[in-house]
């Protein structure tokens, strides 16, 4: 067993573990905003770990490049979807997404 295979197995276990922990977090949290905190890591960390495992196993090949592409899509668009979901939840609750009068928001 080479060091690439060992590292690929570690990354694979890490990726699957992150995804399962995120699913557990989604299940036990109460509000949509709390739940979205667990969708973010699932879209970013898990795909990177699994794509890394595939890349170590296959090298720069068709499978390796497609695994990278899948991770890029999930990491690139996943946070946008999470943000859009949070914004939709806020708009449904307050009618708009701007801060409420009693909310303190620091200007950047």
């Amino acid at each position, binding site marked *: 067993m080479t060091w690439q295979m060992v590292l690929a197995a570690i990354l694979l276990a890490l990726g699957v573990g992150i995804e*399962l922990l*995120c699913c557990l977090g989604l*299940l036990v949290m109460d509000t949509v905003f709390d739940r979205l905190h667990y969708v973010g890591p699932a879209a970013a960390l898990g795909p990177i770990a699994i794509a890394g495992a595939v890349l170590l196993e296959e090298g720069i090949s068709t499978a390796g490049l497609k695994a990278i592409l899948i991770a890029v899509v999930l990491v690139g668009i996943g946070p946008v979807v999470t943000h859009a979901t949070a914004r939709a939840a806020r708009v449904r609750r307050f009618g708009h997404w701007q801060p409420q009068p009693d909310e303190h928001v620091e200007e950047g």
Partner: protein
Amino acid sequence: MNAWLIAALALLPGFVACGVVLWRATVLDALAALNLAGILAALELALLAEGLHRSPFYDLALVMALLACVGGLVFARFLERWI
């Protein structure tokens, strides 16, 4: 059965968690669960492609990842005001 197929099998309980939230929670919570289920489905297909040594199956995972993300955006947009 190799490590990739075992990993694909280990990911399956994640769909149960998403299904429970989809079934029991509010519509926006269900959208969060749907987003996570789409990510899981894309990774599941990628693991199956690697485990079965079928490189073309990666295309399914790629399309699933794209459609899950775009579908989540469309759902979020419609749930924001119109549904």
